């Protein structure tokens, strides 16, 4: 994936993987769709640096905004979380068909 892969306004889905090692993708935010609201620059990936990796890879961290209703099923607030790019994949707008479907 190119880095940065996302821009402000993009909708992204977080990973569902529960890794055995340290990670900064909080459990409550796994598998959810949010909106990129800022590109925070490139930072060493905490999953690697926390394990004592001598030269951890760096990648872009994004501030991603989630609706409380999506995270908890209720609530009128929003939560922003700062997430490394490898925690994220593109999420299509619900109004659009899944990518590639129209080609078949």
């Amino acid at each position: 994936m190119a880095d940065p892969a996302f821009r402000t306004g993009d909708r992204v889905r977080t990973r569902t993987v529960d890794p055995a090692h340290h990670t900064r993708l909080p459990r409550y935010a796994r598998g959810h769709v949010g909106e990129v609201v800022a590109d925070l620059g490139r930072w060493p990936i905490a999953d690697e640096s926390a394990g004592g990796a001598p030269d951890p890879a760096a990648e872009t961290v994004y501030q991603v905004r989630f609706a409380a209703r999506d995270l908890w099923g209720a609530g009128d607030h929003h939560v922003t979380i700062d997430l490394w790019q490898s925690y994220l994949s593109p999420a299509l707008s619900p109004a659009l068909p899944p990518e590639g479907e129209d080609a078949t």
Partner: protein
Amino acid sequence: MTAEHADSRIAVRVARLEERLVAAGLTDDAELEGILSRTLQGASPANGARIVARAWTDDGFRRRLLADAATALPEVGLSMRGGLKVQNLGVVENTATQHHVLVCTLCSCYPIGLLGPSPTWYKSEAYRARVVREPRSVLAEFGLELPDDVEITVHDTSAENRYLVLPRRPEGTSGLTEEQLAALVTRNGLIGTAAV
């Protein structure tokens, strides 16, 4: 270690680790004290209050602060380079319709240089678990009752950015100096658990 940590298991582990490192000749008490005092030197909520008072009285600074806080900080004699590693800073502004509040659900990340050592409740599991889920109730327990039409955004400090809340300037303060305004700003106001 701060006083509120004195009896915790982590404090015991840290103390034992220090003893072992000193016994092995890898460091000594003076070196450890030096690292701690350099890190905490000047770390105080007075720094955050100074930033807020300047933003209230200088709209150009306010705009530069919101656009790129780390670059604007030297204007008030501060920097995000004072800690063990360089961090970035995002300043989020409260308005009549938007309220911001900070948390670190995974641990206790916090802009120590601008706010001083974090309060015990900020590190508590109850605050960390609840404020992302029911911020309106949690803020009410802090004594901050927000009108229903004020939207709340909770910022979970999960990476290398640190955040600071820019509270709304209280009404009836137009005659105050920058210094007098700074004296109105509290640590909780800078975290978002108080209005100012």
